[in-house]
């Protein structure tokens, strides 16, 4: 059952849940791995996951939440599971003790792959939409201008009567 969708994500109720309070967020874009998503898509995916976790926590009076993505499904899925002390679940692992040599080797290998990430992201930001599909970073000309004017007005009103409008928007 679809709970929410927008340009980047679809949120569904898990059909075979691990617990009462299990929701799945998937990107709209076909992807098996997180790395196939742009920074913006990934950030949005986890933003929705985080809000979902907060809603589950509060709405179900849970004692905690887990957000887990295993990259083991045909379409990438982020699972959000409400946790209670009596749910019988545990995602804890047995920690290993690795010797310094192995730790250092792993560190060097990951460092070598990761060190360009900040540089790449910075250059992507400087010339956006060169190789990204980016539905949002480059708005189509025309109608959206009008829409954003409207939003600006909404924001302005929101600032002036922030609390009132916040309440109204929150009405379930």
């Amino acid at each position, binding site marked *: 059952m679809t709970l929410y969708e927008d340009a980047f994500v679809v949120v569904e109720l898990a059909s075979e849940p691990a617990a009462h309070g299990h929701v799945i967020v998937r990107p709209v874009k076909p992807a098996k791995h997180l790395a196939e998503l742009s*920074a913006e898509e990934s950030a949005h995916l986890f933003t929705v996951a985080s809000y979902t976790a907060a809603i589950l926590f509060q709405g179900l009076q849970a004692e905690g939440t887990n957000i887990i993505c295993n990259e083991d499904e045909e379409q990438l899925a982020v699972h959000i599971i409400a946790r209670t002390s009596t749910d019988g679940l545990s995602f804890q692992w047995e920690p290993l003790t690795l010797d310094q040599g192995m730790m250092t080797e792993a560190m060097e290998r990951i460092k070598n792959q990761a060190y360009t990430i900040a540089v790449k992201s910075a250059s992507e930001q400087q010339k956006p939409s060169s190789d990204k599909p980016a539905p949002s970073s480059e708005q189509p000309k025309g109608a959206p201008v009008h829409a954003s004017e409207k939003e600006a007005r909404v924001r302005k009103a929101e600032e002036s009567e922030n609390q009132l409008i916040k309440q109204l928007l929150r*009405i379930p």
Partner: protein
Amino acid sequence: MADQTQEQLLAEQKANCIFCKIVSGEQPSKLVYEDEAMLAILDIRPAVKGHCLILPREHYPIMPLIPPAEFDHLFGRTAALTGALRKAMLAKRCTVFIANGAIAGQQSPHFLFHLIPRDDGDGLGNFDIPKKAVNQDDIAGMLQENLAAVMRQHLVRAEKSQLLAPEKTTFSQASAPQTQTPPVSESTALHPASQQAQKQSPIAIDQLAAIIEDNPDLKALLINNPEKLEGILQQNPQIQQLFDGVDVKKLGEALREKFINRQSPVQPPEKVFAKEGDIKGSDTKEGDIIPAMRLPLQEIFVFIDQKPKLRKLILKDPDQLKAMIPDNERLSIFFAGSNVDAIIQAYRAYAKANQGEEVAQ
């Protein structure tokens, strides 16, 4: 200790935080990535070789407290980091594991999460998500309504409204308001004549009335200053929809009459709790009371953190607090429709885990 401000408590927590020391370099770590806002280090108690921790430089006790720009940065870079980790460790996939709350496995008061390189048959079945036959249709409506409201607000604030699905989200008919249906005089005053106007409105008249009942600020504005409300509505098309075909002035008059008859003039809720210290990044203004059920959890925590008396009652004497609620206007607004015990329990757990607060049983 209970009288310390939230800022002092947070400062104390930071001073003792091992991850803040790793960020500052005071404590050595195996750093694999860093930039202006975050770093990635090897977990010293790994599930498997290459197991990394991702953490923001800043100390945030819980995930919802991360400001949006920093959140986007953190989880934007995470996508690329999982790719780098898979390549480095020649792994087929990567698990992202986030635990909110001790029960879920959160061990540090400095928000962080795990990236674990994975392969088939790697013996890490603990991350597999069990499938059970549990019916959870009962929570679909609650999730739909809250997600729609929260995401719309988030995207408008982040200036990303273009991401919203094209069809307009209206307030669902399923949201059976718990407030009692208002007297007839109000409903008829809403709109005497046109049925057509009623059809245009995305919600039924009695739902609107329930919404007004639920929102003391709105009610006060309707009664005391309908002209101002009309002005606000004109600036805000989304909310104007709610009042489509409704004579705001008449509605205000009807409500005012009703209140005069009940000899209890409506005033904006006044301050009861002293406010101590302002929380950075919080937009809760002095004198505003929003029912807890309308707030995301972190805002409930921030709200309580700002009210030393309320906070002390929750931590030291919840029974007295519960006894006070019915007679205290602001408390009853705050706890309206909420499970008081659940809020008390959640806040006590939060204070204990994140502020080192000792709680009385």
